[in-house]
Structures are given as structure tokens and as C-alpha cells.
């Protein structure tokens, strides 16, 4: 539910949490990202950083430059200026990312977990089953059949938290409990309402369904795509997964390594929330890929 007026809550001495509602309606994330854009456009005094998520935004501030009360007033003013969610237009690039679905590497990850931590069905079969899909292949068709909205880049460097923009491609699944202790780099996972890509080979709780050979961040900024930035994606970008074979994975991986890989990111569109919502309302939502 969207709150009539956003809630403001303190996080210690230099953070404020702005919450737009208490559920996972995508409109609430659009509002959080609209506010993020407004804060940057207005260059609000004292704001150091923003950290959006599903229905909220954490703002970090320098309290020598702005007080908590003044920041709250300023943010409330910016939110008023956003108007209704349908009015929002957000800068949004579209990134095409190659992925091997049902790949051998994440299959090994799941097998390793089954052996060492807790017995477990192959993740894509499990996710297909809980979503009522025919099989893991349909899961891959559905996952690659939509643009995925980058809700936030968070948790570890460059990690995109994404959700399907096409409601016909929504996938929900329970996360691992207990979590994995290790996940292969580039693994594509689904958990809760989200999809994500593992940007560090660490622990994790999402169900693994594929793997991309493309790096999502590079602190050494070697490739031109990282010339002015360290991470590939920003919140409000979109990702389209392009299914490839294992052979193409290895080919792409080699091109990434030698620097000749061309990233496929388009930057000529803006995302109109009003147009998106109109399109969604026109869909036959029972249709499946």
C-alpha cells in the first residue's frame, strides 16, 4: 500500500530512510528512483549518497551542511514536485546481457550445496515447479522474455536487484535456507520477486538458473565501457537476457579477457511510467511464453 504521505525515519546520525509504502508495488520503486533523480538534479545541499530499494530510499547526508529536519523538509518538497507516479520519466539504458541458462557451472554450485549443506532439488526444476511452469526450459523462456527493471544496485559492488517489467514473466520463489556459502561469479539467481547477478564469488540465497560471462563491474576500469564508471548498471536501467550456448559463453569470456568484447547497451530511451502502465493494462496477463 502506498502511504498518503511518505514516512521519514532516522538511521543514526547521518542517514534518513524515506519510505513510500509498505509493499512491493513497482510504483513505490518508481517513486524512490524519481526522488533519487530529483535529489541529483537539484544538487541538494549536504546529500552524500542515495540508496534506493523496492519501496524506499536511504539518503546519506553530511550533518554539518544540513540538519535532519531541514533535509526532511527538502525531501518532502521534492516528493511533492514529482506529482503522480504516472508523470515520472526516468533515464533508463537497456543492457543486453548474454546468459547460458541451465548451465553446468551453477549446476555444480547447487550440487555442491546438496552434498555439503542440505539436500536440494536442481534449482531451475524447483523454481519451475513452484511457479507452475512446464519445466526448466520454460523458466528460461520466461526469464528471457522480458526486460528486467533495475530496482537498485546494492549489497555488493555492481550487483543489480531486478524485477520483471512484463507481468507475464513474473517469477517468485523462496530463497535458500540456510544460504549457500559460495556462488560462482556471474551466476543469475532468482529469489523472492527478484532476479540478480552475482558480482563477487560469495555467499548467497537466490536460486541459480544461469550464468553470464560479462563483468558487471571493474575497479581497474580496463574496458571503455568502464571509462567513467566502475559498475555497469545503475538503478532504473533495464536488462534483457540473451540466451547463448556454452560455446558462445567461452567465446565471449575470451573476448572479455582480451578486451575485445563489445558491451551492448543502448542509451537513447527514457522510461515513461505512464506509458508502461498503459501497456501493462493492455496485456492479456494469462498469456505465457
Amino acid at each position, binding site marked *: 500500500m502506498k502511504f498518503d504521505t511518505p514516512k521519514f*525515519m*532516522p*538511521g*543514526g*546520525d*547521518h*542517514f534518513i*530512510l524515506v*519510505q513510500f509504502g*509498505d*509493499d*512491493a508495488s513497482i510504483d513505490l520503486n518508481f517513486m524512490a528512483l524519481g526522488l*533519487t533523480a530529483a535529489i541529483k538534479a537539484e544538487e541538494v545541499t549536504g546529500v*552524500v*549518497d*542515495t*540508496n*534506493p*530499494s*523496492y*519501496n*524506499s*530510499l*536511504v539518503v*546519506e547526508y553530511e*550533518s*554539518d551542511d544540513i540538519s*535532519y529536519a531541514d533535509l526532511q523538509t527538502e525531501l518532502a518538497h521534492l516528493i511533492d514536485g514529482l506529482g503522480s507516479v504516472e508523470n515520472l520519466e526516468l533515464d533508463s539504458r537497456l543492457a543486453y546481457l548474454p546468459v547460458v541458462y541451465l548451465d553446468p557451472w551453477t549446476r555444480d554450485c547447487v550440487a555442491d550445496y546438496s552434498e555439503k549443506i542440505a539436500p536440494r532439488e536442481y534449482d531451475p526444476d524447483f523454481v519451475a515447479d513452484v511457479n507452475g511452469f512446464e519445466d526448466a526450459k520454460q523458466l528460461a523462456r520466461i526469464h528471457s522474455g522480458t526486460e528486467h527493471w533495475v530496482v*537498485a*544496485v*546494492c*549489497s*555488493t*559492488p*555492481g*550487483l543489480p*536487484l531486478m524485477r520483471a517489467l512484463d507481468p507475464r514473466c513474473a517469477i517468485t520463489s523462496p530463497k535458500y535456507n540456510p544460504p549457500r556459502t559460495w556462488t560462482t561469479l556471474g551466476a543469475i539467481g532468482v529469489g*523472492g*520477486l*527478484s532476479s540478480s547477478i552475482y*558480482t*563477487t564469488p*560469495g555467499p548467497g540465497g537466490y536460486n541459480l538458473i544461469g550464468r553470464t560471462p560479462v563483468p558487471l*563491474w571493474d*575497479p581497474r576500469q580496463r574496458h571503455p565501457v568502464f571509462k567513467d564508471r*566502475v*559498475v555497469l548498471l*545503475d*538503478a532504473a536501467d533495464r536488462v534483457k537476457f540473451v540466451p547463448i550456448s556454452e560455446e558462445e559463453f567461452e567465446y565471449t569470456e575470451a573476448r572479455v579477457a582480451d578486451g575485445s568484447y563489445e558491451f551492448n547497451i543502448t542509451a537513447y530511451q527514457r522510461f515513461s511510467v505512464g506509458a508502461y502502465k498503459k501497456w501493462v493494462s493492455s496485456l492479456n496477463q494469462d498469456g505465457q511464453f
Partner: protein
Amino acid sequence: MALSVEVIKAGLETSVQDFPGRYGFWEQGFPPSGPFDMWSFRLANVLVGNGPEAAGLECQFMGPTLRFSEDCVVAFTGAEMNPTLDGEAFPMWESVAVTAGQVLACGFARVGARAYLAISGGIDVPTVLGARATFHMAGVGGMEGHALKDGQSLNVGAGAGAGAGVPGRRVKQDCRPAISDNKEWQIEVVQGPNDDWIADDGIERFLTSEWKLQARSNRTGYRLEGPDWIFADKASAKGPEHGEHPSNILDHGYPVGSINLCGQTPIILVNDAPSAGGFINPFTVPSAAFWKLAQSKPNDIYRFRRVSVDEAQELRRSIDRLCAVESIA
């Protein structure tokens, strides 16, 4: 010849850090990193005459053994690790002239947990996203992205905030953090952001109980052991998107310092913590209390004292004022 520091023994997770760390990249998934006890770290730079942005070393529990290739000025602050220079006791909280070839050695932390070493000139490692601070979990910043290793050589002298070196300075006793070995700490907390998920008697219980610091604690998170939490009705009567356990919430951003409740285990998210996740944060430790976390050891006992946002900010300002040349005797 340029000054370098040879790492004879690296110690336990000794890392290059700078103040204030990697700020402004939370929205790309980068934590601030930086020195955990910024108060002690900043005073070390003041002592040797460096600017505040100069990089130094954070030593944890067991410090390093280092050899200096040229004459320089060095200061040790924070935890008492029985440092020696060529076998002679090396004074803490003082700037000391070191001559070429001398060896500075540390032992285990006797009082406190983290010591800070500043060298005139500052440690020169490449900046990543504007900072030299090490974020070892992602291999970013510092010495090749990680803690020091035996046999490495640190370049010194051309770094940011390089000072020429001023020996014989000492930090006044009342300008230092009161690092003690009595194992009990009073830690300030600001209530929120998710305090409404905890029942009133749960808030009271948190503030009146003792919390023991668990051994599985590091620069990512500080795990605490204590009584069970009492959740508000809201924590159970919520949509399925929030998850099953009362401590679960739909993924949201985490303030640095938030007390992140995972099931019944509170974890204080500190310098290298993740920026987001799916657990509630009923309280937040303000930046002014971080030095106490940094200097406590496993099994130490915390009691929390609630302060307002304004009080927390004023405490931070009072520490800032002490991190200045006026604190030098």
C-alpha cells in the same frame, strides 16, 4: 631514494585505510570501508604532520612487523600492541623519528583491538573511487585490494596529504579515546529506522539488557548475543513479500551502523557491510560510537544508551574537534 616500508610480518588482516573511506558509492554497492576507529586514525595523521586524507595502516588484534627503508616519522595510536623499535619500547600516541633500516614490531593487542600507524608522507597506493581504503571482500583499494602480505613493500611519501614529518609530538591524554580493558562498554544508539517492528517491551528489553560481542565479528558485522527480541504485531501481520520470519522485511537499504536483526541475532553493520538486504534495523549506532566497537574484543559486554539524532551529531562534532593539532601537547 623514495621511502618504502617492507612488510616482514603482515599481522592479522592489517590493511591500508584512509579517512573517511570510500564515501558516496553506497548506491553502487560499495561500503565506506576506512578506519574503524577514525578518532585514533585521524590523530595518528595529526601527530606525524600529515593531512587528514593521508592513508595509514589499520592493525587488528595482532599488529605487523615493518622495516623502514629511509628516515621518517611514525606514530602509533589506538590499541596497545606493545610496539617495539629495534627491540626498545615504542611510545604510543607520540610521533617518533625512525631511522633507515629500523624495525617496528607489534604484538597482540593488550588493551583495545585496533591500532593505527601513520607514516610521514602517507602510504601511496592507487585510489579507487576516490579512496585508498581497503575493501578486501571485493578486492578493492589498499594493497592490491587486500590485507597486507608478508614480503610486500609499501610506497610512502608521494601519497595524498603528505607531511614532512614532525617528531616529538604527543596527544594530550584527555584528547584520546578512552580505550580501556574493563570489557564493558556503553554504546550510543539512535532509535530507528525500523523500531516500529519491535514491541514497546522489546525496545525496553534491548536498552536494559547486556549484549555480548560474539567471536564471529569483523569489519563487515558485529554479532551480538543477548535476550530474545519481542516483535510488534506488525512484524507478523505483513504481506508475504516481506518474508516469513518477523525480522524479515522487503529488501531495503541499510544505514551504516544499523543494528540488523537476522532472526534473533542482532548484527551491527559496520565499515565493510552490505548496503541492502531483507532484515529490519530497529536501532542504529551513530558514527561517534564506532571507535568503541573498533576497540572492543569478543566476549566484551555492551549496554546501549539511546540518544537523539541531534545528540548523536553533536557527539560526532565533539570528536571532530579533537582530531586537530590543538590536541597535541
